[in-house]
């Protein structure tokens, strides 16, 4: 366990070395959220609510979804693909840790860094400029924190899967890009799932993507209340467990495949 915590720390420090870069990032992120804010205000026009969400809830949804993304987002799929292509993964495999856990921990280090140096200051700026609705309910914040943790796990799991698939394909770039668009669209980052037509919502209910962004953001804006909160988090927890299966299978197969390449 200690070695994995050390990995989180190392990655955190590595990111810290490049922190100046993040200050300009906060500015750009704020413009991004600002533009979204006005776009949604225009979409609402005069309507008080769409699909049970008021315009304040919607803009808060967008802001929190993007801020949470800074935490759960990571590039471990690309890193894995690159380490495979360059053969570095062979050395990683003989080291005394689990490669996949190590990658996830590095992602976590990055996430914590962005949460502290990016999301928090960004959120403060954004709340000054736009009228967002932050709940005073401590429970909601607690549920949101837990739910975002699940988001991180599920997003990382999907990244591990995508990264490992590039073991088997020659060039993973197209696949990784496609995965990103699928996640942007179906995770609820750019559109809440409840806005989609009925049949699409029905299909998405059988896919893990809404666990990444939709559920935590709905919890935060209190669009989910009571039972829906628990159901949402159950959905996340179930997918966390289910996704372990393909990871395990792919990892077994990938290790066997690697021996062939390792000349």
């Amino acid at each position: 366990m200690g070695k994995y915590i050390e990995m989180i720390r190392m990655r955190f420090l590595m990111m810290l070395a490049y922190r100046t870069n993040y200050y300009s990032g906060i500015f750009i992120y704020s413009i991004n959220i600002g533009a979204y804010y006005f776009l949604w205000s225009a979409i609402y026009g005069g309507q008080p609510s769409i699909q049970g969400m008021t315009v304040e809830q919607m803009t808060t949804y967008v802001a929190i979804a993007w801020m949470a993304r800074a935490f759960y987002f990571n590039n471990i799929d690309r890193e894995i693909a690159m380490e495979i292509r360059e053969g570095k993964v062979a050395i990683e495999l003989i080291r005394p840790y689990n490669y996949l856990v190590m990658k996830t921990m590095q992602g976590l280090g990055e996430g914590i860094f962005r949460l502290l140096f990016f999301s928090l200051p960004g959120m403060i700026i954004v709340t000054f400029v736009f009228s967002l609705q932050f709940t005073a309910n401590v429970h909601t914040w607690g549920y949101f924190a837990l739910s975002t943790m699940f988001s991180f796990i599920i997003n990382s799991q999907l990244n591990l899967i995508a990264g490992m698939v590039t073991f088997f394909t020659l060039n993973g770039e197209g696949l990784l890009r496609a995965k990103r668009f699928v996640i942007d669209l179906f995770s609820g980052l750019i559109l809440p799932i409840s806005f989609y037509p009925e049949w699409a919502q029905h299909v998405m209910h059988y896919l893990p993507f809404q666990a990444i962004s939709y559920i935590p953001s709905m919890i935060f804006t209190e669009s989910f209340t009571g039972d829906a909160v628990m159901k949402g988090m159950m959905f996340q927890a179930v997918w966390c467990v289910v996704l372990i299966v393909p990871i395990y299978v792919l990892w077994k197969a990938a290790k066997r495949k690697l021996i062939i390449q390792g000349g």
Partner: protein
Amino acid sequence: MFYISIFFQYMSQYVKTKLQYRTDLLVEFLSDLMFQGVNLIFILVVFGHTQLLNGWTRDEIIFIYGFFLVPFALFAAFFNIWDFNERYIVRGEMDRVLTRPVHSLFQIVLERMELESLLGGITGLIVMGYAASRLHLSFHWYDVILFVLFVLGGTFVYAGIFISLASISFWSDARSSIMPMMYNIGNYGRYPVDIYNRVIRYVLTWILPFAFVGVYPSAYFLRKTEWYTYSFLTPVMGIVCFTLSVLLWNAGVKRYRGAGN
């Protein structure tokens, strides 16, 4: 002349290497289509819940999106420099580029071209055609010339912004992580800028002039007379943006010292 001939030589080499890996090419086409699909789905879903976006109809917004795809495709095909810092500065590749007999920026354009992105332009034309037929737009013969001018203007606006951002890496060791976010901001130029407040409208018009790649030029074809001034500014903005960015680049190259390994 030398530049043109070398450009086509690189281009033919590129096509040859790409055709070696046809499945890759197919996957890239598909992922490009998905990228274009995501934004279209966004527009369609949103207009499932509202009739007008500040007075603009669904088909008008779709038309703007279709227009945007054309300059964006040209930009993506030839100015693929979003990872310039990692690829050229950190790895010391810039040293090699500087020894080449063409301008350093041109050399990078040659090396990094991605002709398959041009397909997005065709998607854009189809999307525009669809929207135009639903809107019953009529065109004059000279609209074709204006279309070409506006597309080139938009391409150079995009290129200018991203070249300027890449040039920053000559001064600071910033990693290119702001680049993906810039792509995001580029999206906001596709919506009528009058929905934003003054600050964002100003940013999108004069600082990061993404509005000249979407809503301003399209307004001309949609016959929104109140925006005509901005529409006709598009080629001018393209030239200004691109010139400034090349000057910045040249200044940066002068400062370049090599990665030292």
